[in-house]
């Protein structure tokens, strides 16, 4: 009985979550321009996308913003996580707490405040301002994921490196950094997807020449949902899904590798008479 209810519940959730997406994907291959009735299979909407100069420009902008802001935020976020890891003083604890702020600030508020800030600083709106804004909201995600990875490592490893003569910096770079790579890559990929489909912050900080895909789609939809939008959305969905699946995979293998390591250690602990 309760089991049946559970399946019903799960089914309902899946229905509302995935059916709209599924419909969108299916319709992107629909020959009908009117969107509702299936009249035949076609790739023409995808081909049309390819020929649409505005869309290609927006796609180019989106990818450029995503790549650059991912690179910057991954480097900065990782550095921050490593710096916070090795020294636990008051200042670091405050910074540690402040990392979460961009995660909880409503995106609209962040967009408006960044807009006001850039204007005040005399920074013209354009791709640069969008990239900077994306870096701002991507850093905390990268830092948190790298921190999670670091938290799973044995702190004594860092101390062992220093014990063997490595300075703090060298110990962090030669020992902790390689061990953190799965977290760094996962953080970077997450930053990439966040940047790629961000709408609100981009909306506030993009100038006229810096239209990204989500903004462009929004403007297309205002004129009515065309099958082209479906095709474009399907492509974005595919990119995001692949990235997220990779992230999940990386985080899992990362922690599995760690588990194997711990297992090897704890297997010897089982016969332990003390502790």
């Amino acid at each position, binding site marked *: 009985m309760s089991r049946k209810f559970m399946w019903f519940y799960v089914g309902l959730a899946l229905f509302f979550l995935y059916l709209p997406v599924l419909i969108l994907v299916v319709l992107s291959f629909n020959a009908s321009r009117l969107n509702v009735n299936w009249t035949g299979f076609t790739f023409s909407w995808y081909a049309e996308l390819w020929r649409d100069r505005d869309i290609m420009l927006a796609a180019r902008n989106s990818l450029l913003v995503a790549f650059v802001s991912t690179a910057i935020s991954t480097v900065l976020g990782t550095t921050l996580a490593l710096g916070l890891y090795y020294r636990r003083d008051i200042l670091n604890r405050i910074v540690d707490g402040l990392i979460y702020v961009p995660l909880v600030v409503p995106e609209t508020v962040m967009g408006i405040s960044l807009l006001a800030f850039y204007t005040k600083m005399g920074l013209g709106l354009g791709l640069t301002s969008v990239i900077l804004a994306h870096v701002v909201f991507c850093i905390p995600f990268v830092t948190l994921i790298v921190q999670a990875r670091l938290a799973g490592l*044995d702190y004594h490893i860092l101390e062992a490196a220093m014990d063997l003569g490595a300075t703090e910096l060298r110990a962090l770079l030669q020992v902790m950094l390689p061990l953190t790579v799965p977290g760094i890559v996962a953080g970077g990929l997450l930053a990439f997807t966040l940047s790629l489909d961000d709408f609100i912050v981009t909306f506030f900080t993009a100038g006229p020449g810096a239209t990204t895909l989500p903004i462009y789609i929004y403007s297309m939809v205002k004129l009515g949902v065309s099958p082209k939008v479906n095709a474009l959305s399907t492509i974005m969905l595919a990119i995001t899904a692949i990235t997220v699946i990779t992230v999940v995979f990386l985080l899992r293998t990362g922690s599995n590798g760690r588990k194997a390591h711990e297992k090897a250690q704890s297997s010897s602990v089982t016969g*332990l008479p003390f502790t």
Partner: protein
Amino acid sequence: MVRLEAVTKRFGETVAVDNVSLEVQKGEFLTLLGPSGCGKTTTLRMIAGFEKPTCGSIYINDRPVDNLPPYKREVNTVFQNYALFPHMKVKDNVAFGLRIAGLERSEIKRRVDWALDLVQLTSYGDRYPHQLSGGQQQRVALARAIVCRPRVLLLDEPLGALDLKLRKEMQLELKSLQRHLEMTFIHVTHDQEEALIISDRIAVMESGAVHQVASAAEVYEKPATLFVAQFIGDVNILKVTVADGDGDEAYVQGTESKIPIAVEEHRRYAPGQVLNLAVRPEHVRIGERGARDTGEPQAVLGGVVNNLLYLGSTLKVQVVLPGGDTVTAAFPNSSGRPEFRAGDQVCLSWPVSAGRLLGQ
């Protein structure tokens, strides 16, 4: 080689290490022994440079090291959980310190081979730490630390995670390794038997304080405090009150009996003073009346046999005194079965010099 001068370490309210002074000689195997949480690890970490003393100073090779970071100290550590670098092969783990030191490739290879050979892991260089057993990982940690040829090697419960049999083997190996290398070892354990077997000297710690620093035999036979007597080996503790007179006799509390106590020149006890008398079970004799031994003065008490415990190599006899305290006597089983049984009225005795008087 290593000297601690009045070193104290506080973590907020907790006093982890309390005014510890300690001198470790060159080439010595010193063990910090004490129950969990008594400050052993903290002491070691201060020597390694991972913690700063709240007050007091530490000297390594007669040089104050209070302002030296870990990577500038001529000590290496074998960590409790080994802390091997999981992403490096065994040989790279061992080579790590040498590479940092900037040694030549050929020299690094020679030293790594030497160290792996020393810990009998010659053919394991290309494995990763997680492909090794606990005992092998422990050896890698050891090799990684000694390959740098530190002046002092710090070992934090290095055998704690090994099973009993392997641990016994490794105790002897560690000891012979230390002799072979002529390196100063500071070793931490909560296992008193390990400390007795392995050490030249033992520093017994409790609640952050060092109670006694002495050889295994001295710590066992002449414990400085009640804690040391009770922590190391089995011991009978009797509360005694010093009798009127020369202070060479005392009443055993809860009984009418007066027994002679050892008087040392430098330490006289005032009549009425309450002390703990510590006697090891192997010194206690049981006879039907009085002691058989002659020559040495004996302390004699009457009691009733309560329990006989057969422990293989020894037989333990528990005797209840009139006051309700229990005294245990231990006999080697090779000396034949004693002919008394539970319920028998017997005389306990021990040489006066075997009884050690300790304050609270």
